[in-house]
């Protein structure tokens, strides 16, 4: 039998280990943050790697003036918003059909859609690039977004959530003469909102962070999102190894999503636990 004292000691030990690991994991980002606040004329040298003589935000304003980050922000917002807006409609409708109806070819259609989980869109960049070209969409925000308008992952998640809605509730709705639209709106959707939130958060963070596909289908600043803009920025000749400036640009790109996550952190993790993701 453990005594009270050893179990308290044990708890302290676990806390210490957990804090140590979390600190270790956070060092790269904390270091970049510290560096981004360092005066530009104090390069980082051996021995004094953490802070400069004063803290300043001039690196952020310089990064902002050296590349059209404002435009990149707008592009990313438009792209992420467009994808999520369309996805919410397409996945809800398809998931409802798969969960509520029995019809010929249901299984086949579901499997065909689920293929998208096994063959990720990124792997198909060569043929999809040809499609975008032939549709005349090259170098538009639309070109980045359109391959993601249908989502097997979202359809599957929402279908699982809809299947857990109590049958009695659905039957009662049918007895009351609800149309399919009313059933979806008032019976299926309300208990499935945590799943939809989880999907929305993962969709936003996935597409905010995506790089390769946007790099391929855009070439001008008018369509380029933050990620592709950042990589272009790091390769600008005049940037070189100005790490304070680079860190500032990096954090500019990651910032808004980070804030969104901090605000919704509890929600985010709870949604994961609630949705069929476990």
């Amino acid at each position, binding site marked *: 039998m453990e005594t009270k004292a050893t179990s308290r000691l044990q708890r302290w030990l676990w806390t210490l280990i957990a804090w140590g690991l979390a600190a270790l994991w956070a060092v790269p980002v904390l270091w970049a943050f510290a560096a981004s606040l360092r005066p530009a004329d104090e390069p980082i040298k051996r021995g004094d790697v953490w802070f400069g003589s004063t803290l300043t935000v001039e690196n952020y304003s310089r990064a902002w003036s050296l590349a059209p980050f404002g435009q990149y922000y707008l592009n990313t917002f438009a792209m992420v918003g467009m994808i999520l807006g369309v996805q919410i409609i397409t996945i809800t409708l398809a998931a409802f059909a798969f969960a509520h109806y029995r019809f010929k070819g249901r299984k086949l259609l579901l499997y065909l859609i689920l293929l998208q989980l096994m*063959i*990720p869109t990124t792997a198909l960049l060569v*043929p999809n690039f040809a499609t975008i070209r032939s549709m005349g969409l090259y170098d538009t925000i639309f070109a980045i977004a359109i391959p993601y308008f249908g989502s097997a992952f979202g359809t599957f998640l929402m279908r699982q959530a809809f299947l857990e809605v109590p049958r009695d509730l659905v039957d009662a709705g049918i007895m009351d003469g609800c149309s399919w639209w009313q059933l979806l709106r008032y019976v299926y959707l309300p208990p499935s909102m945590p799943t939809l939130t989880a999907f929305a958060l993962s969709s936003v963070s996935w597409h905010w962070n995506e790089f390769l596909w946007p790099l391929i289908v855009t070439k001008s600043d008018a369509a380029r999102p933050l990620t592709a803009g950042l990589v272009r920025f790091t390769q600008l000749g005049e940037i070189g190894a100005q790490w304070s400036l680079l860190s500032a640009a990096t954090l500019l790109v990651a910032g808004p*999503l980070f804030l969104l996550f901090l605000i919704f952190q509890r929600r985010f993790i709870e949604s994961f636990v609630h949705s069929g993701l476990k």
Partner: protein
Amino acid sequence: MSTRRTRSLVPYLLILPTFVFVAAFTIWPTINAIYTSFFRQRLNVARFREPTFIGVENYVKLFHDPRFLNVLRNTFIYVLGTVPASIIVAFLFAWLVNRKIKGVGWVRLGIFHPTILPMVSAATIWMFFFTPDYGLFNTTLSRLGYQGPQNWTGNPHLALLAVMIVAFWKNAGYYMIFYLAGLQGLPHDVFEAAVLDGATTWQQLRYITFPLLRRTTLFVTTIAFIGAFQTVDHIFVLTQGGPSGASTVLLYYLWQIRFEYQDVGKASAITVILIALLLIFTVSNFMLSERKEEA
């Protein structure tokens, strides 16, 4: 029986939008890639610009090309190195932060936050971190007694390891969330009974936790493998596949062949190989877990 057996068109119309986009950007391009892989088409060579049927020549050439074989080798090292490591660590993290700890929210944030960073941002930060001489990675290592080469991203023996470290660091926290969700869904009374019976921590893990989390592990393994094949953003930032191909993996090579060498036929053949690897993996992973379930 509330699931409607129906002959109406409503369900088909509801599925139509999703189906159209999946057909246009998953099913059709897969077929198209297979078809195109049997043709020679190189956009930067005038006489090869129009596609000509050449059978399986693209595949034969690829498998005789030492550069491609090297790419396959790197890909396997990358996938088999990052996936199990990040899953094991993810489980340990989840197990650690699932207990009563002061400030557990901050600990979770500390471990999870790399997930929220774009991979290109994470890689840029690590480029800084890896910098020879004053980069924190090197200064810390040398303080711990490390005497080896400093320039990890520029060293042919270390470049692949460097990009693997970044992927490992970024993904472990993401997979942790799934295990955390799994752990919180486990029945408490089983553990209480086990403790009363005198089961050690290791026995609880071995005979209760692991078996009950098998579905979580299957899910995490699947997304981790697919993710490992489809993320090359950090390679663009850190090494551009170099030095001399030392950190080139399949998807990066695919991009190079299509957009630097402009070889559409060969790029299509690589696409087919990539899809085949992904399918072989997901199907065998699934079957393996089904068989275990029967046993």
